[in-house]
Structures are given as C-alpha cells and as structure tokens.
C-alpha cells in the first residue's frame, strides 16, 4: 500500500486544502502536508532491497478486465531516487512560493499537489494505460500553474507547452493500443501490463523505416523527446521556464523533465532493444548538438532565467547520450545526472526567484557587484553554480564524469564533442556569475531607494538542504548509486531479453 499512499496522498491533501475554510492556514498546512509526504517517502528506504532488479512494493489489481488494464504500481532501482527527488523538492518549493505566489494561494497549492500525484504516478506505473493517464494528467496542473501565476506572456507559453507535449503523447497512445493488440496475438489475452509488453518480441528490420518496431519506437521516443526536451524539440522549454512562476520552474526543471528521460529507461530501451540500438546514433547526435547548442545559446542570453533554461537543454543532452550508449556507466551516469539536474537547476531557479522578488528584474545587465551587497546569497549561488558546472566534489561532477566515461567507451567522437559542453558550461555560468556578482554595481544594485536585503531565515532553510545534497551526492556517490546498481546492471546485461519479475513471485 505504500506506493498507493505515496501517489494518492497529495490528492487527499489537495481535497483538504480545497475544502479548508480559513484562507491564511493554506500555506502552513501545505508545508506540513509536503513534509508528511516526504516522510512517507522515506519509509521505502527501510524495506528497499538494493540487491535485486526485481519489482518491489508491488500493487496489482485488475482495473478494466476487457482490455487487461491493471492498476499496477511498483518500484525498482530506476524509479527509487526519482520518487525521493519528487518528495524532497516539494516542501522546498512550497517554502519558495511563500511570497512569490500572493494571489489564489489555495488554487496554487491544489494544482501543485495534483501535479505531485501525477508525476509520482508516472514514475511508478507499470501499466501502459495507467501510466498514460498519469502522464497526461500531469499537463493539466502545470498548464494552470504557468497560465495563472506566470509572467506577461504566460498564456502563449502555457498553450505552447500543453499542445507541444500533448502532440507528442497522443501518438504514443496509438502505439500503446497497438501493442495491446500485439499482446492479444501473443498471449491470447489483451493486456497493457508493462511486464507483458517486455515479453513481446516485435519484429525489427533495420533497413526498413516502416518496420513495426521502428514505428513503435519512434512513437514512444517522440513523446519522451518532447518532454526531455531533446534538440530540436526544445523550443517550448525556454518559453515555459521564463513565464512560469518560480515554483513552477522548479517543478518543471526538477522533476517534469526527468519524466522524459526516465521513460527512456523504463519504456523505450527495454521495449525496443533493436530499434534503440539501431537508431541510437540519432539520439546521441541530437544529444550532442543539444549540449553544444544549449550552451552557446545560454551564453548570449540577457535574461538569467532564460540562461538557466537553455542550460537545462544542454544538461538534458548529457543525460540522453548517457542513456543511448547503453552501457553501465552511461546509464548510471544518466540516472545520477537526472537527480543532479533536479537539485542544481531547481536550486538555481529558486535563487533566481529570490533575487527577482527583491528587484523584479532578471536582466543580467541590470546587475553587477551583488557580492558586496548580498554576501550570503552570493555564497549559495556560487556553490550551486559549481554544482551546475560539475566541479569535482559536487554532485554534478559524478554524473557528468560517469556519462562521459560511458560515452567514451561507446563512441569517442561523441565524447569529444560532449566534453566541449563542459567547457562551454563553465564559461556561460561563470561569465554570468561574474557579470551579476562582481564588477561595477549595476543600476538595480546601486539603487539607494530600494536597498537589497540579504537572505532571511526562510530562504536559508530552503537553500541549506540543496547545498547539503550537492556535497553529499558529490562526495558519497556510491551511497546513491548502489540503489540503482542492480537495476541498471540487469538492463545492460539483458537488453534484448529484458523481463522484470516481481519480487517474491516466481
């Protein structure tokens, strides 16, 4: 029941918040709820078995008999940390929204909790239709968060986000239905159980683009590529990030983008092993282009938030190439980088939100010399910047190193190009840091009428966990990697005969 509790507890919270009479209690209650949710998430640590790739905490019930659709939740090493990341970020996001969301507080928190539910559901679902329901459901609250609490071009951004993402996923729905018919052919009973999907052997002819596995592969891969987002499908992301309110950006960068990369590991690689191997070059190429392109575009952005948004495109490119080289280091690194990106980019968006609350501007040229005015803020920003550019001893280093190692083993050329992204990453982040925090005081910083105040207690409370995570994950990576070790190992070794089993079931 633990997984159902994890997934549906936020819905219950949302209902309570919707019906609660006092308006001024909404924020504290939401904070307490998210802490409870986080604590519930920690329970799985106790019983999680790191030695096996099998599914754990399984909950399986028939839902729609006729089509073999099941309510099937389970956890394994791949989803373990992503679930933890989702619940870890929630209280920090609510704290970060304390001042920035001033209108329709109740509505915001309801949307937020429903979003949590949908994201967790799509991480944990092992039934294609159940997964699709969660996957699509996650669009609706995000659509409202950007559209209602966003910036001036919010409606354009939110519509673009919604339609772009949905356009990708409807083809996946057709592919899912088609695969359900394949299970009917193979096993006599229609099923949308992912474990049954894994058992299918779908015919693949490499040279023929219209062979069944290739088509299904692209139907799935397109949906996830838009979500990731993979160059050249990334154009919705900078718009959505710039217009989204701070908490919206944090969820989007921190968790939602990971739904895309996670699904490559859960769905695409094991379901279509031959096609993923045959077409991997496209994804590696686009990933590398994304890394370099994202970094170059980030470098010239005048807006800090847009800079971070493009840096996301670059970082997500790393994850994609890590996954598609399909060796142990690449996959481990990819998974680790998902967590790192969630932490470091999430923290960056929160930091940008903090400075935006003070000055109402994100123009880099308006700043300068912040370090002498806001010393504490500068320290935190610097640590997160280091994490983002993957300096050793921070979490980013471990992920990027593993990915590059894996990529080098498979394709030295790709690794060579990807490494330039590391340099470029350092360049745009440090250059931005220099322009914002050092040099002559910019007009906003020097403004005598609005003196800037350094971090308050609430902001310290938000930032400290991020910094702790940056170092813990950077210094003790094995503690984290060991949870996904068995699952990744199984995926690498049994690529073409991937058949997960349920723990405790023969």
């Amino acid at each position, binding site marked *: 029941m633990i997984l159902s509790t994890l997934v549906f507890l936020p819905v219950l919270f949302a209902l309570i918040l919707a019906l609660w009479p006092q308006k001024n209690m909404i924020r504290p209650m939401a904070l307490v709820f998210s802490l409870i949710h986080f604590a519930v998430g920690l329970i799985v640590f106790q019983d999680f078995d790191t030695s096996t790739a099998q599914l754990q905490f399984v909950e399986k019930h028939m*839902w*729609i*008999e*006729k*089509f073999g*659709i099941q309510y099937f939740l389970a956890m394994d090493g791949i989803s373990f940390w992503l679930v933890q990341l989702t619940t870890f970020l929630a209280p920090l996001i609510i704290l970060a929204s304390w001042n920035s969301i001033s209108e329709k507080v109740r509505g915001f928190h309801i949307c937020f909790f429903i979003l949590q539910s949908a994201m967790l559901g799509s991480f944990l679902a092992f039934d294609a*239709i159940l997964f*699709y*329901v969660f996957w*699509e*459901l996650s*669009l*609706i609250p995000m*659509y*409202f968060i950007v*559209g*209602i609490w966003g910036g001036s071009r*919010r*409606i354009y951004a*939110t*519509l673009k986000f*919604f*339609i772009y993402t*949905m*356009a990708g996923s*409807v*083809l996946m*729905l*057709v592919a899912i*239905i*088609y695969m*359900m*018919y394949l299970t009917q052919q193979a096993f006599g009973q229609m099923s949308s159980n992912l474990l049954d999907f894994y058992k299918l052997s779908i015919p693949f002819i490499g040279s023929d683009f219209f062979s069944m596995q290739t088509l299904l592969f692209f139907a799935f891969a397109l949906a996830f590529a838009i979500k990731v987002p993979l160059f050249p499908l990334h154009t919705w992301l900078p718009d959505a990030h710039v217009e989204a309110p701070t908490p919206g950006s944090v969820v989007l960068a921190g968790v939602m983008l990971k739904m895309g990369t996670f699904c490559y590991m859960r769905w695409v690689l094991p379901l279509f092993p031959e096609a993923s191997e045959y077409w991997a070059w496209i994804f590696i190429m686009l990933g590398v282009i994304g890394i370099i392109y994202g970094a170059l575009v980030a470098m010239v952005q005048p807006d800090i938030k847009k800079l971070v948004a493009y840096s996301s495109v670059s970082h997500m490119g790393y994850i994609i190439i890590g996954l598609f080289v399909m060796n142990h280091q690449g996959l481990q690194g990819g998974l680790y980088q998902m967590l790192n990106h969630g932490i470091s980019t999430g923290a960056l968006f929160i930091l940008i939100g903090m400075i935006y609350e003070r000055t109402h501007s994100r123009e880099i040229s308006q700043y300068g010399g912040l370090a002498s005015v806001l010393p504490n803020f500068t320290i935190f920003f610097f640590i997160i910047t280091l994490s983002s550019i993957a300096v050793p001893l921070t979490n980013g280093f471990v992920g990027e190193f593993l990915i590059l190692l894996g990529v080098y083993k498979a394709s030295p050329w790709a690794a060579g190009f990807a490494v330039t992204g590391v340099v470029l990453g350092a360049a745009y982040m440090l250059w931005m840091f220099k322009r914002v925090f050092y040099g002559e005081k910019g007009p906003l910083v020097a403004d005598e009428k609005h003196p800037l105040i350094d971090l308050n207690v609430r902001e310290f409370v938000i930032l400290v966990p991020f910094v702790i995570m940056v170092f813990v994950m950077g210094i003790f990576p094995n503690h984290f990697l060991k949870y996904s070790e068995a699952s990744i190992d199984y995926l690498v070794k049994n690529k073409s005969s991937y058949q997960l089993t349920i723990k405790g079931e023969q």
Partner: protein
Amino acid sequence: MNFTVDMGDLLLTSPLIALFIASLIPLTIKVLKGNIEQKPIATLTQALLGIIAAAGLLVSFGGEGNTAFNSVLVFDGITLWTGLIALAAGAGALILMFENPATRGTQFSELIFLTLSSILGMLILISALDLLMIFIGLEMMSLSLYLMIGMSHEQRLSKESAFKYFVLGSFASAIFLFGISFIFGSSGQTNILQLLESTVQLAQGNQLFLFGIVLVTVGFCFKVSIAPFHAWTPDVYQGAPTPHTAFMATAVKVVSFAAFLRIIAMKPLVGSESLFDILQWLAVITMLVGNTAAILQNNLKRMLAYSSIAHSGYLLVGLLAAGISNNGSFAASGVIFYLFAYSLMTIGSFALVSMMEKTEDHSLDVDDLAGFAKRRPALALCFSIFMLSLAGMPPSIGFFSKFYLFNAAIGEGLIWLAVWGVLNSVISVYYYLRPIVVMYMREGDADVSHAGHFATAITIIVTAALTLLLGVVSGPLLALVEASLV
C-alpha cells in the same frame, strides 16, 4: 399479413406509449383550465415523470432483442442504451428549457409537448427495424424540432435557424426516402432483418441497391452533421435557443447515430469497398473541418457546434470499425459509450451557456467568460472539466471513450484513421483550452448577476461529477453494453 396486436407488443412499446401520454398531460390540463398555463414547475415535473416512466419501462421490458408488430420495431441493446441516453439528454434539455429566458414562461406546455413528441420520434427511430419506420421516426423527431426552434421567444436568429433547419432537413429526408425507394426497388424489401442476409451480395453486385444505400447514408450524414453535409449545423446550433441546441447536439445526434449503426450493421461496407472508402474520407474531412473551424469561432455556441461536428468525425471512425468487424458488438459498444460520454459533456457545456444567457437573444462569446472563475469558482471548474474531457484528457470520461473508440478502430486495422483522430484531438485542445484561459487567466467581470438558475446549476454539477468520475469505472459499464449487443 395479419394485424393482430398482442400483449407482448404492447408491453414492448410501453415506453413509447408512456411518453405519448405524458406529452399530452400538460396540454390537456391547459385546455381544461381554459387555456391558462399551469405553473411551469408542474409541467416540468409531469414531463420528467413521463421520461422516468419511459426509461423504467424500457429497462424492464426492452433490451432482449424482442421484436414487435411483425418485426417493425426491435428492442435490443442498441435501443436500450441509446434510448436511455436520449431520454436522459432529453430530461437535461427540459431542465434547461425550464430556466432559459428564450424558452421559459408562455407556451411552456406546448414546448414540453413538442419535446416529448420529439423524444417519442427518437424512440421509434432507434427501435425501427424497417426503413420506412426509420423514416417515420426521423420525421417525427425532426418536425417537432423545427417547431420547437421556431417557438423561441427570440425573434430573429431562431426563426432563421428553424427555417434553415427545416429546408435542409427536408432535403435530407427526401434524399433518405429516395434511397429507400432504390433499396426497395432492387431488393423488394424494406425490412432490415430480411435485408440483413442479402446486403453483402447486393452491395457487391447490384448498383441500384448500392446507390440506395449511398443515398440513405447521405441522409444520415446530414442528420449527424458529417462534412460536407454539415453546413447547417453552426447556424442552427447558434440560432436555436440553447436548451434546444443541447437537445440537438446530444439526443438527436445519439439516436441518428444509433439508426446509422443499424444500417451499417447490415454490413454494406463489407460488400462495397468504395462505400467504405467514401465514408473513411468523410471521417477524415469531418474531423479536420470541425476542429479547424472551431478554432476560429468566438461565439461559444458556434464553437461547440463545430466541436460536435468534429466528434461526429471520431464517431464515424468507430462506426466504420463496427461496419467491417466480424465482432461488431465490440466496436458498436465503443460507439455507444462514446455517444454517452459525448452527451454528458455536451449537455453540461450547453447548460453553462444557457445559464449565462441574460435575455432571450443574448449570444455568449468566449470572451464573456473573462473573470468567471473568480465569480463562480465551482461552475468554472465544472466547465473546465467539460472542456478537458471533450479534448480527451485523462482521467475524464472523454479520454476513456476515445480510448475505447480508437481501440476498436486499431483492432480493425484502421490505424491511420486512429492516428488522424488523435492528431485532430491535439488541434482541438487549442480551442477547448480557450474558454479555460479566458475564465482563469484573464481579468474581467463575467456577468453572473442574473444567473440564479438553480436547476441548471445542479445539472451542470451532476454532469461534471459524472464526467470526471465515470471514466475511471467505465470498464464494467462498457462490458455491460457490449454484452447486451450480442
């Protein structure tokens, strides 16, 4: 032929009889009282009781596939389920009529009489097993509707709309009748049961028969607004009083599709490849026309009209799947479930439009909803649920109905139609999200001062709750429908 009427026939047709009696009660009372209208609430209650009685009788005696009056009427699964949907949609429309400024007040009992007569025509239409009987049902339903629209208190648009609907509807009926004559001429039959065995051969070899079938199909395409026979829909939907629009968009469409399904179930598509091709392309065009034209609309009713055209396109895909399937009941149950889901969402949406109307000639634009979320948060949420569900977002019933429909289509190998359908639903997201954008994200003063429509509000909330929740538990419901169709 003998024309004896036995008890079984009367029991089977008892829903029709009950509805007929109920339709006369308000009128009789009015006459007896010396042409003075009784309280509208009493009229409404009598009508709703009549509908409930009809539904109860339909459930108790129908649904087992028995035929009445020498195999002219049949009461099988299609009749039962589409009948229930039509009755429920009719009841919803009646509640809207009770409170809408264009229909309430004077002449309410006449309106109720016409509405119930129209529903009676619908029940004949969906239970008819004879082509001529289908025609009678179709005409009874439509003639009442023309009058209903013409009776509106609004003076300009509704008259134009009634006239337009009348002329085009008669045209469609004539084509339909013409088709029947060809079918009769080439096969010597008008009874579907007897035609059933020979349709495939006749459609393969007999050009005259095929011509008849095509004309009958065209007649139905008019009724369910399949492009290019859809041109009347936006004008009529916009001009008619909103409750009548709701009635047309749901009940009329449901029963027309049910009768269409009966014709398709004769398997003419198996016999004639070209007929299948024609309908396939009509489905493609309809989805595209409905969805792209809806994007351009500002008037909410016009937008919903185009959206209903688009949904006809999706339904036609399901109909095609049913028409070529060996196991027709699977695809047919998908179609019927889709009709149910579609009616639920559409009645709810039109109920909100009806509620927002201040005077009888008030036309509601999408922009009039600005700030509505602030004034009426619960109703705005309901409307958002309808819109998202119409767009097919999970976990609403709209998603599951699309899933069942396209599942059937993919099962029959109509993959590219399914792909086209889902891509079109992406286009549709754009205009379905627009009212939500306006309600939630734009500042404004939605005029809700007059909106004290209590019964309408209840209708909206109930349909919204069902829209949201029924999808999740739709599995058993679909199984039930499918089981009754075998």
